Protein backbone atom coordinates (compact mmCIF):
# COMPACT_ATOMS: atom_id res chain seq x y z
CA UNK A 1 0.00 0.00 0.00
CA UNK A 2 1.13 3.55 -0.70
CA UNK A 3 1.72 5.98 2.14
CA UNK A 4 1.28 9.72 2.40
CA UNK A 5 3.90 11.86 4.16
CA UNK A 6 1.54 11.74 7.17
CA UNK A 7 0.76 8.01 7.39
CA UNK A 8 3.14 7.56 10.32
CA UNK A 9 1.55 10.55 12.09
CA UNK A 10 -1.86 8.89 11.82
CA UNK A 11 -0.56 5.61 13.19
CA UNK A 12 1.07 7.38 16.14
CA UNK A 13 -2.32 9.01 16.83
CA UNK A 14 -3.82 5.47 17.02
CA UNK A 15 -5.96 6.04 13.95
CA UNK A 16 -7.91 3.11 12.54
CA UNK A 17 -6.34 2.79 9.11
CA UNK A 18 -7.88 1.49 5.91
CA UNK A 19 -6.95 1.20 2.27
CA UNK A 20 -8.36 3.94 0.09
CA UNK A 21 -7.44 4.24 -3.60
CA UNK A 22 -4.28 2.25 -2.90
CA UNK A 23 -3.22 4.43 0.05
CA UNK A 24 -3.08 3.59 3.71
CA UNK A 25 -5.38 6.28 5.11
CA UNK A 26 -6.94 7.15 8.49
CA UNK A 27 -10.63 6.16 8.66
CA UNK A 28 -11.12 7.67 12.11
CA UNK A 29 -9.11 8.51 15.20
CA UNK A 30 -9.80 8.01 18.91
CA UNK A 31 -12.72 10.48 18.95
CA UNK A 32 -14.75 8.32 16.54
CA UNK A 33 -16.65 9.21 13.40
CA UNK A 34 -19.62 11.01 14.95
CA UNK A 35 -17.60 13.15 17.37
CA UNK A 36 -15.11 14.02 14.61
CA UNK A 37 -17.96 15.09 12.36
CA UNK A 38 -19.55 17.31 15.02
CA UNK A 39 -16.17 18.69 16.07
CA UNK A 40 -15.53 19.87 12.52
CA UNK A 41 -18.92 21.62 12.40
CA UNK A 42 -18.29 23.35 15.76
CA UNK A 43 -14.52 23.95 15.83
CA UNK A 44 -11.89 22.93 13.29
CA UNK A 45 -10.72 19.61 11.93
CA UNK A 46 -7.56 18.79 10.03
CA UNK A 47 -7.68 16.12 7.33
CA UNK A 48 -4.86 14.43 5.45
CA UNK A 49 -5.95 14.37 1.82
CA UNK A 50 -2.46 13.90 0.39
CA UNK A 51 -3.65 10.88 -1.57
CA UNK A 52 -5.43 13.26 -3.96
CA UNK A 53 -3.69 14.20 -7.18
CA UNK A 54 -2.09 17.64 -7.38
CA UNK A 55 -1.32 18.59 -10.94
CA UNK A 56 0.12 21.61 -12.73
CA UNK A 57 -1.05 22.37 -16.25
CA UNK A 58 1.23 24.88 -17.92
CA UNK A 59 1.92 26.39 -21.31
CA UNK A 60 0.80 28.97 -23.82
CA UNK A 61 -2.46 27.16 -24.53
CA UNK A 62 -3.16 26.03 -20.99
CA UNK A 63 -6.50 27.86 -20.67
CA UNK A 64 -7.73 26.68 -24.06
CA UNK A 65 -6.78 23.13 -23.04
CA UNK A 66 -8.64 23.39 -19.70
CA UNK A 67 -11.68 24.66 -21.59
CA UNK A 68 -11.39 21.67 -23.91
CA UNK A 69 -11.43 19.08 -21.15
CA UNK A 70 -14.00 20.77 -18.86
CA UNK A 71 -17.34 22.53 -19.58
CA UNK A 72 -16.21 25.55 -17.52
CA UNK A 73 -14.91 28.87 -18.76
CA UNK A 74 -11.83 30.37 -17.14
CA UNK A 75 -11.73 33.48 -19.30
CA UNK A 76 -13.14 35.81 -16.68
CA UNK A 77 -11.85 33.90 -13.69
CA UNK A 78 -9.50 36.18 -11.72
CA UNK A 79 -5.92 35.09 -11.08
CA UNK A 80 -5.93 32.67 -8.10
CA UNK A 81 -9.66 32.01 -8.55
CA UNK A 82 -10.71 28.37 -8.16
CA UNK A 83 -13.62 26.48 -9.71
CA UNK A 84 -15.24 23.14 -9.10
CA UNK A 85 -15.71 21.38 -12.43
CA UNK A 86 -15.59 17.99 -14.15
CA UNK A 87 -13.65 16.27 -16.92
CA UNK A 88 -16.17 15.22 -19.55
CA UNK A 89 -15.95 12.39 -22.06
CA UNK A 90 -17.34 12.30 -25.62
CA UNK A 91 -20.62 10.75 -24.49
CA UNK A 92 -21.13 13.53 -21.96
CA UNK A 93 -20.19 11.38 -18.96
CA UNK A 94 -17.70 12.41 -16.32
CA UNK A 95 -14.11 11.19 -16.18
CA UNK A 96 -13.64 12.86 -12.78
CA UNK A 97 -14.64 15.89 -10.74
CA UNK A 98 -11.95 18.30 -9.67
CA UNK A 99 -10.98 21.77 -8.47
CA UNK A 100 -9.03 23.96 -10.87
CA UNK A 101 -7.28 27.14 -9.78
CA UNK A 102 -6.15 29.69 -12.35
CA UNK A 103 -2.65 30.73 -11.33
CA UNK A 104 -2.28 32.69 -14.57
CA UNK A 105 -3.48 32.43 -18.18
CA UNK A 106 -0.68 29.89 -18.69
CA UNK A 107 -0.64 28.00 -15.40
CA UNK A 108 -3.43 26.07 -13.69
CA UNK A 109 -3.30 24.10 -10.44
CA UNK A 110 -5.59 21.07 -10.34
CA UNK A 111 -6.67 18.84 -7.45
CA UNK A 112 -8.33 15.59 -8.52
CA UNK A 113 -9.53 12.35 -6.94
CA UNK A 114 -6.99 9.84 -5.66
CA UNK A 115 -8.76 6.94 -7.32
CA UNK A 116 -8.77 8.68 -10.71
CA UNK A 117 -5.18 9.92 -10.77
CA UNK A 118 -3.82 7.54 -13.40
CA UNK A 119 -6.99 7.64 -15.49
CA UNK A 120 -7.14 11.45 -15.45
CA UNK A 121 -3.48 11.90 -16.33
CA UNK A 122 -3.79 9.47 -19.24
CA UNK A 123 -6.99 11.19 -20.39
CA UNK A 124 -5.50 14.67 -20.18
CA UNK A 125 -2.27 13.68 -21.88
CA UNK A 126 -4.21 12.01 -24.69
CA UNK A 127 -6.04 15.30 -25.39
CA UNK A 128 -3.19 17.66 -24.69
CA UNK A 129 -1.50 19.80 -27.36
CA UNK A 130 2.30 19.79 -27.45
CA UNK A 131 2.48 23.29 -26.06
CA UNK A 132 0.89 22.21 -22.78
CA UNK A 133 2.77 20.42 -20.04
CA UNK A 134 1.07 18.31 -17.39
CA UNK A 135 2.99 17.61 -14.19
CA UNK A 136 1.87 15.46 -11.27
CA UNK A 137 3.26 17.12 -8.13
CA UNK A 138 4.35 14.00 -6.28
CA UNK A 139 6.44 15.88 -3.74
CA UNK A 140 3.49 17.73 -2.21
CA UNK A 141 1.09 16.80 0.56
CA UNK A 142 -2.42 18.21 0.93
CA UNK A 143 -4.03 19.11 4.26
CA UNK A 144 -7.56 20.37 4.71
CA UNK A 145 -8.37 22.54 7.72
CA UNK A 146 -12.14 22.85 7.96
CA UNK A 147 -14.56 24.39 10.44
CA UNK A 148 -15.68 27.74 11.85
CA UNK A 149 -12.40 28.18 13.76
CA UNK A 150 -10.19 27.41 10.75
CA UNK A 151 -9.21 31.00 9.98
CA UNK A 152 -8.42 31.75 13.62
CA UNK A 153 -6.34 28.57 13.86
CA UNK A 154 -4.18 29.54 10.89
CA UNK A 155 -3.70 33.01 12.36
CA UNK A 156 -2.74 31.70 15.77
CA UNK A 157 -0.53 28.81 14.66
CA UNK A 158 1.16 30.19 11.56
CA UNK A 159 0.66 33.96 11.99
CA UNK A 160 -1.19 34.07 8.69
CA UNK A 161 -3.71 36.81 8.07
CA UNK A 162 -6.29 35.26 5.74
CA UNK A 163 -9.14 37.64 6.47
CA UNK A 164 -8.99 39.02 2.94
CA UNK A 165 -8.84 35.61 1.25
CA UNK A 166 -12.25 34.94 -0.23
CA UNK A 167 -14.10 31.68 -0.85
CA UNK A 168 -12.69 29.79 -3.87
CA UNK A 169 -9.49 31.83 -3.88
CA UNK A 170 -5.89 30.77 -3.48
CA UNK A 171 -2.92 32.59 -2.02
CA UNK A 172 0.67 31.41 -2.21
CA UNK A 173 2.68 32.05 0.94
CA UNK A 174 6.27 30.89 0.52
CA UNK A 175 5.89 27.28 -0.60
CA UNK A 176 2.32 26.88 0.67
CA UNK A 177 -0.65 27.05 -1.71
CA UNK A 178 -3.56 27.98 0.56
CA UNK A 179 -7.05 27.78 -0.98
CA UNK A 180 -10.18 28.86 0.84
CA UNK A 181 -12.43 25.92 -0.04
CA UNK A 182 -13.18 22.39 1.03
CA UNK A 183 -15.47 19.42 1.02
CA UNK A 184 -17.38 19.95 4.26
CA UNK A 185 -19.52 23.06 3.73
CA UNK A 186 -17.65 24.82 6.51
CA UNK A 187 -15.32 27.75 6.14
CA UNK A 188 -11.86 26.31 5.69
CA UNK A 189 -8.73 25.83 3.70
CA UNK A 190 -6.87 23.28 1.66
CA UNK A 191 -3.15 23.66 2.11
CA UNK A 192 -0.74 22.24 -0.44
CA UNK A 193 2.63 21.83 1.26
CA UNK A 194 5.96 20.29 0.21
CA UNK A 195 5.97 16.74 1.59
CA UNK A 196 9.05 17.34 3.73
CA UNK A 197 7.24 20.04 5.75
CA UNK A 198 3.91 18.24 5.95
CA UNK A 199 4.44 16.43 9.30
CA UNK A 200 5.62 19.67 10.97
CA UNK A 201 2.61 21.58 9.63
CA UNK A 202 0.27 18.77 10.71
CA UNK A 203 1.74 18.77 14.24
CA UNK A 204 1.60 22.55 14.49
CA UNK A 205 -2.09 22.64 13.56
CA UNK A 206 -2.90 19.84 15.99
CA UNK A 207 -1.29 21.74 18.87
CA UNK A 208 -4.13 24.25 18.69
CA UNK A 209 -6.85 23.53 21.23
CA UNK A 210 -9.61 23.95 18.63
CA UNK A 211 -8.16 21.37 16.25
CA UNK A 212 -8.66 17.61 16.12
CA UNK A 213 -7.55 15.18 13.42
CA UNK A 214 -10.48 13.96 11.31
CA UNK A 215 -10.55 10.75 9.29
CA UNK A 216 -12.01 9.87 5.91
CA UNK A 217 -15.22 8.44 7.43
CA UNK A 218 -16.25 11.82 8.85
CA UNK A 219 -15.07 13.50 5.67
CA UNK A 220 -17.64 11.35 3.87
CA UNK A 221 -20.53 12.15 6.26
CA UNK A 222 -19.65 15.87 6.14
CA UNK A 223 -19.72 15.92 2.34
CA UNK A 224 -22.91 13.87 2.29
CA UNK A 225 -24.69 16.51 4.41
CA UNK A 226 -23.64 19.06 1.80
CA UNK A 227 -25.03 16.96 -1.04
CA UNK A 228 -21.65 16.92 -2.75
CA UNK A 229 -21.35 13.98 -5.16
CA UNK A 230 -18.61 11.42 -4.55
CA UNK A 231 -16.90 10.29 -7.74
CA UNK A 232 -17.26 6.58 -8.46
CA UNK A 233 -20.47 6.47 -6.45
CA UNK A 234 -22.75 9.43 -7.20
CA UNK A 235 -21.14 10.36 -10.52
CA UNK A 236 -19.04 8.41 -13.01
CA UNK A 237 -18.19 7.89 -16.69
CA UNK A 238 -21.83 7.14 -17.48
CA UNK A 239 -23.58 10.03 -15.66
CA UNK A 240 -23.85 13.45 -17.25
CA UNK A 241 -23.35 16.66 -15.29
CA UNK A 242 -26.95 17.56 -16.19
CA UNK A 243 -28.60 14.57 -14.55
CA UNK A 244 -26.14 14.86 -11.66
CA UNK A 245 -27.47 18.35 -10.93
CA UNK A 246 -24.17 19.99 -11.86
CA UNK A 247 -25.43 22.10 -14.78
CA UNK A 248 -24.32 25.17 -12.80
CA UNK A 249 -20.65 24.39 -13.42
CA UNK A 250 -21.21 25.50 -17.02
CA UNK A 251 -22.01 29.04 -15.85
CA UNK A 252 -23.54 31.06 -18.68
CA UNK A 253 -22.39 28.37 -21.11
CA UNK A 254 -19.65 30.57 -22.52
CA UNK A 255 -17.70 27.41 -23.25
CA UNK A 256 -19.35 25.41 -26.07
CA UNK A 257 -16.34 23.56 -27.46
CA UNK A 258 -15.42 21.13 -24.70
CA UNK A 259 -15.22 17.36 -25.13
CA UNK A 260 -18.74 15.94 -25.09
CA UNK A 261 -20.37 19.39 -25.52
CA UNK A 262 -22.70 18.10 -28.23
CA UNK A 263 -23.95 15.23 -26.08
CA UNK A 264 -24.41 17.48 -23.06
CA UNK A 265 -26.23 20.27 -24.91
CA UNK A 266 -28.45 17.68 -26.61
CA UNK A 267 -29.13 16.26 -23.19
CA UNK A 268 -30.09 19.71 -21.91
CA UNK A 269 -32.55 20.17 -24.77
CA UNK A 270 -34.09 16.71 -24.88
CA UNK A 271 -34.76 16.58 -21.16
CA UNK A 272 -33.69 14.11 -18.53
CA UNK A 273 -34.48 10.41 -18.12
CA UNK A 274 -33.23 10.42 -14.54
CA UNK A 275 -31.79 12.84 -12.07
CA UNK A 276 -29.80 12.88 -8.86
CA UNK A 277 -31.92 13.60 -5.81
CA UNK A 278 -31.33 13.80 -2.07
CA UNK A 279 -33.52 12.08 0.50
CA UNK A 280 -33.95 11.92 4.23
CA UNK A 281 -35.29 8.85 6.00
CA UNK A 282 -38.35 9.28 8.19
CA UNK A 283 -38.41 5.69 9.42
CA UNK A 284 -35.55 4.12 11.32
CA UNK A 285 -32.60 2.63 9.52
CA UNK A 286 -29.68 3.53 7.30
CA UNK A 287 -29.95 3.55 3.51
CA UNK A 288 -26.62 2.85 1.90
CA UNK A 289 -25.29 2.57 -1.65
CA UNK A 290 -27.24 0.04 -3.76
CA UNK A 291 -30.58 0.25 -1.91
CA UNK A 292 -33.66 0.56 -4.13
CA UNK A 293 -35.75 3.72 -4.24
CA UNK A 294 -39.50 3.10 -4.62
CA UNK A 295 -42.65 5.14 -4.96
CA UNK A 296 -45.37 4.86 -2.31
CA UNK A 297 -47.02 2.47 -4.80
CA UNK A 298 -43.96 0.23 -4.46
CA UNK A 299 -42.63 0.82 -7.99
CA UNK A 300 -38.84 0.85 -8.25
CA UNK A 301 -37.72 4.26 -9.58
CA UNK A 302 -34.04 4.27 -8.80
CA UNK A 303 -31.04 3.34 -6.68
CA UNK A 304 -29.19 4.92 -3.78
CA UNK A 305 -25.65 5.95 -4.78
CA UNK A 306 -24.50 7.04 -1.33
CA UNK A 307 -26.11 7.28 2.03
CA UNK A 308 -25.47 7.20 5.72
CA UNK A 309 -26.23 8.64 9.08
CA UNK A 310 -26.12 12.41 9.44
CA UNK A 311 -24.70 13.33 12.85
CA UNK A 312 -25.92 16.94 12.42
CA UNK A 313 -29.52 15.97 11.63
CA UNK A 314 -29.50 12.79 13.75
CA UNK A 315 -31.26 11.05 10.91
CA UNK A 316 -30.20 9.06 7.88
CA UNK A 317 -29.75 10.84 4.57
CA UNK A 318 -28.59 9.87 1.14
CA UNK A 319 -28.64 10.53 -2.56
CA UNK A 320 -29.37 8.54 -5.64
CA UNK A 321 -30.77 8.62 -9.14
CA UNK A 322 -34.50 8.36 -9.85
CA UNK A 323 -36.41 8.13 -13.12
CA UNK A 324 -38.29 11.25 -14.14
CA UNK A 325 -41.98 10.96 -13.26
CA UNK A 326 -44.92 12.23 -11.27
CA UNK A 327 -44.70 10.50 -7.95
CA UNK A 328 -44.29 13.33 -5.47
CA UNK A 329 -41.68 13.57 -2.76
CA UNK A 330 -42.78 10.72 -0.50
CA UNK A 331 -40.74 7.62 -1.28
CA UNK A 332 -39.56 4.35 0.19
CA UNK A 333 -35.99 3.13 0.43
CA UNK A 334 -35.75 -0.66 0.53
CA UNK A 335 -33.15 -1.93 2.97
CA UNK A 336 -32.79 -5.72 3.27
CA UNK A 337 -36.34 -6.21 2.02
CA UNK A 338 -37.88 -3.63 4.33
CA UNK A 339 -39.44 -0.44 2.91
CA UNK A 340 -38.37 2.55 4.99
CA UNK A 341 -40.37 5.78 4.68
CA UNK A 342 -38.35 8.65 3.24
CA UNK A 343 -38.83 12.02 1.64
CA UNK A 344 -37.04 13.65 -1.30
CA UNK A 345 -35.24 16.76 -0.05
CA UNK A 346 -33.36 19.64 -1.57
CA UNK A 347 -29.62 19.49 -1.07
CA UNK A 348 -27.60 20.60 0.80
CA UNK A 349 -29.20 18.91 3.79
CA UNK A 350 -27.33 21.22 6.17
CA UNK A 351 -26.84 24.95 5.47
CA UNK A 352 -23.29 25.63 4.27
CA UNK A 353 -21.21 28.14 6.21
CA UNK A 354 -18.56 28.78 3.62
CA UNK A 355 -17.23 32.33 3.55
CA UNK A 356 -18.51 34.54 0.74
Amino acid sequence: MKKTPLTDSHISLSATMAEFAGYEMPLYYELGVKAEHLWTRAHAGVFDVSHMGQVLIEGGHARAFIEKITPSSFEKTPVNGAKYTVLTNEAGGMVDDLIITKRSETQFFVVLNAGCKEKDLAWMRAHCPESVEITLLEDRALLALQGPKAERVLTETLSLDLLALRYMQMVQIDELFISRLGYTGEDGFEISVPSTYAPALWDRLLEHKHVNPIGLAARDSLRLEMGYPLYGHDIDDTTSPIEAGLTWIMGKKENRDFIGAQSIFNHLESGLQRRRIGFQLIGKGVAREGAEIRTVKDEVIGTVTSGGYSPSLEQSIGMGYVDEGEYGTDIFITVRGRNIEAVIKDMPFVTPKTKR
Partner: protein
Amino acid sequence: MSALKYTKDHEWIEVTGNKAKIGISDHARDALGDLVFLELPDTGRTLSKGEDFAVIESVKAASEVYSPISGEITSVNESLADSLDDLKEDTEKGWIIAVEMSNPSELEGLMDKVAYDLYLGEL
Protein backbone atom coordinates in the same frame (compact mmCIF):
# COMPACT_ATOMS: atom_id res chain seq x y z
CA MET B 1 -25.48 -17.69 36.54
CA SER B 2 -23.65 -19.70 33.94
CA ALA B 3 -20.48 -18.47 32.25
CA LEU B 4 -20.62 -16.92 28.82
CA LYS B 5 -19.35 -18.57 25.66
CA TYR B 6 -18.14 -16.68 22.61
CA THR B 7 -17.98 -17.07 18.83
CA LYS B 8 -15.25 -15.96 16.45
CA ASP B 9 -17.79 -13.45 15.10
CA HIS B 10 -17.92 -11.84 18.58
CA GLU B 11 -21.33 -12.97 19.77
CA TRP B 12 -21.78 -14.15 23.35
CA ILE B 13 -24.23 -16.80 24.48
CA GLU B 14 -25.50 -17.48 27.99
CA VAL B 15 -26.97 -20.94 28.41
CA THR B 16 -29.54 -21.90 31.05
CA GLY B 17 -30.76 -25.47 30.55
CA ASN B 18 -32.12 -25.71 27.01
CA LYS B 19 -32.50 -21.94 26.68
CA ALA B 20 -29.90 -19.38 25.67
CA LYS B 21 -29.57 -15.61 25.47
CA ILE B 22 -27.43 -14.14 22.70
CA GLY B 23 -25.72 -10.76 22.41
CA ILE B 24 -22.50 -9.17 21.13
CA SER B 25 -19.19 -8.89 22.97
CA ASP B 26 -17.72 -5.67 24.34
CA HIS B 27 -14.98 -6.03 21.74
CA ALA B 28 -17.58 -6.05 18.95
CA ARG B 29 -19.38 -3.13 20.53
CA ASP B 30 -16.17 -1.05 20.65
CA ALA B 31 -15.26 -1.97 17.10
CA LEU B 32 -18.68 -0.90 15.79
CA GLY B 33 -18.31 2.66 17.10
CA ASP B 34 -21.35 4.95 17.19
CA LEU B 35 -24.54 2.92 16.79
CA VAL B 36 -27.50 4.26 14.86
CA PHE B 37 -30.07 1.53 14.54
CA LEU B 38 -30.75 -2.08 15.46
CA GLU B 39 -32.86 -4.29 13.21
CA LEU B 40 -34.42 -7.08 15.26
CA PRO B 41 -35.95 -10.41 14.15
CA ASP B 42 -39.45 -11.71 14.94
CA THR B 43 -40.21 -14.10 17.75
CA GLY B 44 -40.88 -17.62 16.53
CA ARG B 45 -38.29 -17.62 13.76
CA THR B 46 -36.18 -20.75 13.49
CA LEU B 47 -32.43 -20.18 13.23
CA SER B 48 -29.65 -22.43 12.04
CA LYS B 49 -26.21 -22.19 13.58
CA GLY B 50 -24.32 -19.39 11.83
CA GLU B 51 -27.45 -17.75 10.42
CA ASP B 52 -27.73 -13.97 10.71
CA PHE B 53 -30.69 -12.77 12.76
CA ALA B 54 -30.12 -9.07 13.43
CA VAL B 55 -28.37 -6.12 11.82
CA ILE B 56 -26.55 -3.40 13.72
CA GLU B 57 -26.22 -0.15 11.80
CA SER B 58 -23.39 2.02 13.02
CA VAL B 59 -22.23 5.32 11.57
CA LYS B 60 -19.60 3.28 9.75
CA ALA B 61 -21.43 0.25 8.38
CA ALA B 62 -24.14 -2.36 8.66
CA SER B 63 -23.02 -5.43 10.60
CA GLU B 64 -24.89 -8.71 10.85
CA VAL B 65 -25.22 -10.69 14.05
CA TYR B 66 -24.98 -14.48 13.64
CA SER B 67 -26.54 -17.15 15.80
CA PRO B 68 -23.99 -19.35 17.65
CA ILE B 69 -26.50 -22.21 17.76
CA SER B 70 -29.63 -23.60 16.08
CA GLY B 71 -33.05 -23.11 17.60
CA GLU B 72 -36.23 -21.10 17.77
CA ILE B 73 -36.39 -17.46 18.88
CA THR B 74 -38.58 -17.39 22.00
CA SER B 75 -38.22 -13.69 22.78
CA VAL B 76 -36.65 -10.54 21.40
CA ASN B 77 -35.27 -7.69 23.52
CA GLU B 78 -37.32 -4.97 21.80
CA SER B 79 -36.28 -2.32 24.34
CA LEU B 80 -32.69 -2.47 22.99
CA ALA B 81 -33.75 -0.68 19.80
CA ASP B 82 -34.36 2.45 21.85
CA SER B 83 -31.41 2.07 24.21
CA LEU B 84 -28.51 1.11 21.99
CA ASP B 85 -26.03 1.93 24.75
CA ASP B 86 -27.15 -1.27 26.46
CA LEU B 87 -26.04 -3.38 23.51
CA LYS B 88 -22.91 -4.94 25.05
CA GLU B 89 -21.68 -7.83 27.16
CA ASP B 90 -24.54 -7.48 29.66
CA THR B 91 -26.78 -10.50 30.12
CA GLU B 92 -29.49 -8.49 31.90
CA LYS B 93 -29.92 -5.59 29.45
CA GLY B 94 -27.70 -6.36 26.47
CA TRP B 95 -29.16 -9.61 25.14
CA ILE B 96 -30.70 -9.42 21.66
CA ILE B 97 -32.66 -12.66 21.47
CA ALA B 98 -33.51 -15.65 23.63
CA VAL B 99 -33.51 -19.04 21.87
CA GLU B 100 -34.81 -22.53 22.63
CA MET B 101 -31.88 -24.62 21.46
CA SER B 102 -32.55 -27.55 19.11
CA ASN B 103 -29.03 -28.97 19.16
CA PRO B 104 -27.13 -28.08 22.38
CA SER B 105 -24.10 -30.11 21.24
CA GLU B 106 -23.29 -27.16 18.94
CA LEU B 107 -22.07 -25.33 22.07
CA GLU B 108 -18.96 -27.50 22.12
CA GLY B 109 -17.17 -25.53 19.45
CA LEU B 110 -17.54 -22.19 21.27
CA MET B 111 -14.86 -20.37 23.27
CA ASP B 112 -14.94 -19.63 26.98
CA LYS B 113 -13.80 -16.21 28.28
CA VAL B 114 -10.10 -17.12 28.49
CA ALA B 115 -10.04 -18.64 25.00
CA TYR B 116 -11.90 -15.64 23.60
CA ASP B 117 -9.45 -13.19 25.17
CA LEU B 118 -6.56 -15.17 23.70
CA TYR B 119 -8.37 -15.14 20.34
CA LEU B 120 -8.78 -11.32 20.53
CA GLY B 121 -5.07 -11.01 21.31
CA GLU B 122 -4.27 -12.74 18.04
CA LEU B 123 -6.50 -10.48 15.89
